[in-house]
């Protein structure tokens, strides 16, 4: 009995977390889905029409380009920091982690208005580059945290052995370090991409409305109230996120 109670509770909780996403997909795959119909007449017309609009395609590409740029920059910047933090201890490490924790404990809207004001002062707002720079504020802490956890378990004596045996720094990185930290690097990369891809407020304010990503189209569609447009844009915004999690999960399973 208790086992069944647990299973029912788990199924119910999972339904609450999954059902709204199913409703979005159904909304996108519907046309004139009127109340009180619980199930729409399914059609892909909405996905073809809304998904095929140049504005939608541009928003997807813009979000992806910004996400990839943010991910690469975050990993490049976080890598050396994580290696140092992984083998250090003491108050300096605490201070650095405290600095990295600030973006997580500052209310999102406060951080967004502050960063926007700062970039405005420097004349750096309104372009994709400035949005990339702004997204680094929330992504770098994640990148450093995940990579530090990776390097804490990393045995750098193997790299030293490779160096002793005559490998160049690049060979050590590519043939020794990279395979050893690959799964952790993938998780960090996926996480940073998702954080960037999901940003709405920072993109809206720093981009001054000129940088349009898919999350901004979702907001516009939400204000418009057309269920098909809402469903299509929201589904498109959610798909890469879901795929990224599946990919990261696969990388970890392969590692296991």
């Amino acid at each position: 009995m208790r086992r069944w109670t647990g299973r029912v509770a788990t199924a119910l909780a999972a339904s609450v977390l999954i059902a709204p996403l199913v409703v979005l997909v159904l909304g996108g795959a519907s046309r004139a889905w009127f109340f009180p119909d619980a199930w729409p007449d399914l059609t892909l017309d909405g996905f073809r029409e809304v998904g095929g609009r140049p504005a939608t395609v541009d928003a997807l590409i813009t979000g992806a380009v910004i996400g990839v740029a943010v991910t690469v920059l975050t990993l490049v910047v976080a890598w050396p920091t994580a290696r140092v933090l992984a083998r250090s201890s003491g108050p300096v490490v605490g201070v650095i982690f405290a600095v990295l924790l600030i973006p997580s404990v500052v209310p999102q809207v406060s951080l967004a208005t502050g960063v926007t004001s700062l970039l405005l002062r420097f004349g750096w707002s309104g372009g994709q580059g400035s949005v990339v720079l702004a997204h680094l504020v929330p992504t770098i802490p994640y990148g450093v945290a995940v990579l530090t956890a990776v390097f804490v378990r990393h045995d750098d004596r193997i790299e030293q052995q490779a160096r002793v045996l005559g490998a160049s720094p690049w060979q050590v990185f590519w043939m020794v370090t990279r395979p050893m930290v690959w799964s952790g690097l993938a998780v960090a990369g996926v996480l940073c991409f998702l954080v960037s891809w999901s940003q709405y407020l920072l993109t809206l304010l720093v981009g001054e409305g000129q940088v349009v990503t898919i999350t901004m189209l979702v907001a516009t569609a939400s204000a418009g109230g057309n269920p098909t447009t809402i469903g299509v844009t929201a589904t498109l915004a959610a798909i890469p996120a879901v795929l990224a999690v599946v990919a990261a999960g696969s990388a970890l399973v392969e590692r296991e």
Partner: protein
Amino acid sequence: MRRPGRTARSLVALGPVLVVCGGLTVGALALMVTESLGVGEPSGLVNPGIDAYRSVVGADGFVEALAFSMWVAVAGTLLALAGAVTVAWLWTTRPGRLHRVGLGVLHVNLSIPHIVWAVALAATFSQSGWLSRLVVLVGLTDASADFPVVVRDSFGIGIIAHIVTKELPFITIALLPLAGRRAAPLLRQGAVLGASPMQRLRTIFLPTLAPALFPAAMVSFAFALGAFEPGWVLGASTPRTLAVVILERFRDADLVRRSEAQALSVILLSIVFFVAALGWRRTRRWIVSTS
């Protein structure tokens, strides 16, 4: 001779992160404070001083917005905490094959952008949403108006639902490593020694999770208090969350409004730091002794 070289290399390694992340964050916070005080603004447009604070605190609806923001943030965070602890407890004490699927569901939910999730909740739980249609289908109601208002309602139920459903996965995932590695063996020992489930929960499980529980709760509270999307999509036109008010004022062409937005941001930030300091004082002993 080796040590200075290593220190220098460490500084070079840490520099970019501190400059980009630390510099932007600290700079943003500093500017937020100075702009709220009207310092550094073009002369004559905004007077230096606490005018912006006087203006926002005295404005109609400030107390309501503050109380409403605190209500949804506290209720959302506490419910998410309770849910996450329950899930972690169930998964730790009753291992099963479903957990991997459940973990996948949590990760998928966590990866969904907030604006998408808010829109999804609105499409599901509004009066003309999917749940309302299912209720009509089974004959419990006849029209959309018969379904209770849980989205864009004056109690913030929709916003709280957003906070709970997004933060529960985050807190659960933060708790699971400690629950599995540290709490599980201790719970087994407790059971062997005859401790009741409630004793195991209170004296073993919760103290063991403390190092992850309280930081996760603080991050969740900060998110809940400052998140814009839930209040904008799922909130009523009145009362509004402070985050929605801040954004509205920040985007106003009037520079005075922008100073007011920054003043509200400083107030919001102060609340988070105050709650964080309180939480840290109360939990420091646990966190230090168990981490």
